[in-house]
């Protein structure tokens, strides 16, 4: 029996040396076993890089599975709630997958790399579930998390930087498209995807070429304000974009013990991802029943008065806080929108778009706590949705 080398302690991504060189705060945490920075110098500055220039985020720890084999499409179409037969090779789909009870296991992106070959990226690990889903089908599942280094390059100047770096044909790449280019003798995959709600790309490369990629990228971006960012900046950007996060805005069904703590896609505002025209997918029977009988919860985007973030606040139907109907899961003051925003979960039928709810905000001034009831309007659209995000070709700025 040969010895297997098991990494000790926190793993380092292939970009670690570059991140460490830029780091001034020494504030790191773990993400699926990897050490990643909360911020490298200043979370606010990093956030503004995303909105005004370009922020570069190391997303290598993102869980990545390769799904292939003759039944790959059948497999993936049964796995997720949306119709994957519409996702052509070279396209990416945001998708959500459920257990048989129609409760969300996780959400993520599925890259149709080439005909019949997919990459599924998600926050959580899903090996057991994905293997179970392959029972009786001719599909192979490979965990390639460590085999692919990945960077998110996000912000208004990202297109200009990548073009300057020499990526040809990027201008034609539409949102949720992907392309392959030669890079240092290997294949670099570029997808127009991201978690910031802004113009942006994600780069996927052989870990051996990770540092070269970083260096070329930063060389090309120097004059347009490229900055490495940590997870704090990204967190703010994703709330502005209205993106939900596993373990924060919903609990992955497989990590949930108590009944009633999980959520269905319908309860997370993801009904547009559930295609009942498909005859079978995991959770279909339960979701069809839920659609008939009504959901219990609704995810709401809140525009709250005042400027005090409503972290962990209870949500009420009335200003006198008599009827508690839910709670805030993500909250922030949005610098770019100049709005006090939040994502929350409320009991149906509360929270229809346009309606007014109340959140109970606690804030502290010099040790003493104060409480205020703040009016919150339920909004329909993402808080931040700039035109440049959908523009093809993007502006060369």
């Amino acid at each position, binding site marked *: 029996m040969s010895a297997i080398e098991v990494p000790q302690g926190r793993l380092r991504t292939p970009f670690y040396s570059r991140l460490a060189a830029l780091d001034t705060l020494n504030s790191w945490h773990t993400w699926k076993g990897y050490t990643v920075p909360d911020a490298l110098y200043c979370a606010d500055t990093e956030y503004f890089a995303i909105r005004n220039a370009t922020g570069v985020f190391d997303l290598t720890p993102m869980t990545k599975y390769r799904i292939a084999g003759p*039944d790959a499409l*059948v497999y993936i179409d*049964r*796995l997720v709630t949306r119709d994957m037969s519409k996702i052509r090779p070279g396209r990416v789909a945001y998708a959500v997958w459920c*257990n*048989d*009870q129609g409760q969300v296991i996780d959400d993520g992106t599925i890259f149709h790399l080439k005909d019949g070959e997919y990459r599924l990226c998600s926050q959580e690990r899903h090996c057991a*579930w994905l293997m*179970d*889903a392959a*029972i*009786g*089908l001719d599909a192979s599942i490979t965990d390639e998390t460590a085999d692919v280094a990945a960077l998110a390059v996000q912000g208004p100047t990202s297109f200009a930087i990548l073009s300057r770096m020499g990526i040809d044909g990027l201008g034609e790449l539409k949102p949720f498209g992907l392309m392959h280019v030669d890079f240092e003798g290997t294949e670099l995959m570029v997808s127009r995807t991201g978690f910031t709600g802004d113009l942006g790309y994600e780069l996927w490369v052989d870990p051996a070429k990770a540092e070269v990629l970083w260096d070329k990228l930063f060389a090309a971006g120097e004059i347009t304000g490229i900055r490495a960012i940590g997870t704090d900046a990204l967190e703010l950007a994703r709330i502005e974009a209205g993106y939900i996060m596993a373990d924060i805005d919903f609990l992955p069904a497989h990590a949930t013990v108590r009944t009633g703590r999980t959520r269905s896609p319908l309860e997370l505002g993801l009904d547009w991802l559930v295609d009942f025209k498909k*005859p*079978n*997918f*995991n*959770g*279909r*029977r339960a979701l069809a029943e839920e659609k008939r009988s009504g959901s219990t919860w609704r995810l709401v985007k809140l525009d709250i008065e005042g400027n005090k973030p409503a972290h962990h606040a209870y949500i009420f139907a009335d200003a006198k806080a008599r009827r508690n109907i839910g709670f805030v899961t993500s909250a922030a003051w949005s610098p770019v929108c100049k709005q006090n925003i939040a994502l929350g979960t409320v009991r149906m039928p509360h929270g229809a778009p346009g309606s007014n709810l109340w959140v109970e905000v606690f804030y502290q001034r010099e040790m003493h706590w104060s409480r205020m009831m703040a009016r919150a309007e339920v909004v329909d659209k993402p808080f931040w949705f700039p035109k440049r995000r959908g523009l093809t070709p993007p502006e060369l700025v």
Partner: protein
Amino acid sequence: MTERYDAIVIGAGHNGLVCAALLAKAGRKVLVLEANERVGGAAITREFADGYSVSACAHLLYQLQPKVRKELGLSPKLASDAMQTVALAQDGQHVRYSGAKVTGVAEADVSSYRLFHRQMTRFADLLNTYLNTTPPRLGTSEFRDLATLARLGFDLRRLGRDEMRTFLRLIGINIHDEVTERFDSPLLRGALSFDAVLGTHLGPRSPNTVMTYLYRLAAGHGRLSVPQGGMGSLAEELAQAARTAGVTIRTNMPVERIVVENGRVAGVETAGGERFESLTVVSNADPKRTIMELVGARHVETGFTRRINNIRMRGNAAKLHLALDGLPGIDGLAKNEFGDRLVIAPDEHYVERAFNPAKYGECSAEPVVEMTFPGFRDKTLAPTGKHVMSCVVQYAPYALKNGWDDAAREAFTKTCIETIGRYAPDLESRITASELLTPADIEREFHITGGHWHHGELALDQFMFVRPVCGAAQYRMPLDGLYLCGAGAHPGGGVSGAAGRNAARFIIREQSA
């Protein structure tokens, strides 16, 4: 051209026939498709050597539910009835038991056995009520399910405080502990242990083997009989009842797949390419075969597929058929006792030791054996003056480490004959032909995955509310129009007809709701 039916039953096993007959009696146009040449599934009689016939799989009738018998007007002609069990001893000091009576043991054991039998049959009666109903769902607000649950609770309470506690204590424990606590006679302990583990991948020390013992007693308190003409004649009678009710039965029609259209069952397609349409397909095949092979994973959800795939169903019981030119001599056995059931299980440890190798994919070096001589009372089975011997031999694991080939089959046959030979020394010289059906052969001949009698191990985690799997215990599978009616569904195997009857009743009730 396709034919349309109200319901199609896949497989003419005894449960399939019961289900089809009851559906037809309720006015449905029913088609039964059987893969084999003859109806009956594992309840058939067939020739295994020139002029010698035998019940090829199940060979004793003791679980046929009285309700099935009554509703279908069955009155099988019995060659033997109320057979006693003779636990063979090499020195001829056999132990015999039947009903509440045991002989050949000390007085203390006689009264202990009487008490044991009374208690066990009482519990078995309670169990039997629920073997004949659709198991309730847990965590539901359906009135019917809640009512059944409430009744179950009430029935348990009605046993009385002490008896209820005993029942709840016994249901999960092993038969070994129970028989060693109650009896002194090793032969009695051995034979009862064997009764509890017959047809399972369990040894006497395995959990819930008291439950499997109760299951055995449920329908008729363990009263053993053999139909005239073997089990096949019962199948024929069932088929006749079905035909009379208007069922069309077609044999030599192996179903290749269950047709699924727009997320629901639309019919079946045979291996010959014939297609039959029906919005209701009832499968008498085992759950694994039904879902994984006939339906296909793509048409059902992942959690369900995983559960079905994980059903434990490794057969361990082999059938040994011997053609004899005369009855062998067994010390201390009266001539008329050849019409009884003879077992080789000298003590409870012997049974456990026989099981041990099976855990590692090997056959028992000293198997436990259940023997009958069906030709003794039934002259239709063998030429005049000749005899057949039908034995269940354990343990012969389905997944034999080196695979089942002719050499392995021959070796195990030899082991069995040697084992029996210790009790019947002239047996070998009387054998003119033999046949061993290993679980692998049973799988091939009767299309039962793993060759397991019960279409899935009879264990608490695969019983009642969770048989065949959690969330699908009410005969209805999570695919519209698909139902199970075989031993893989509640309550389990044995020639009882309960699964077929319950399934038919469920379907009729659901469709008229």
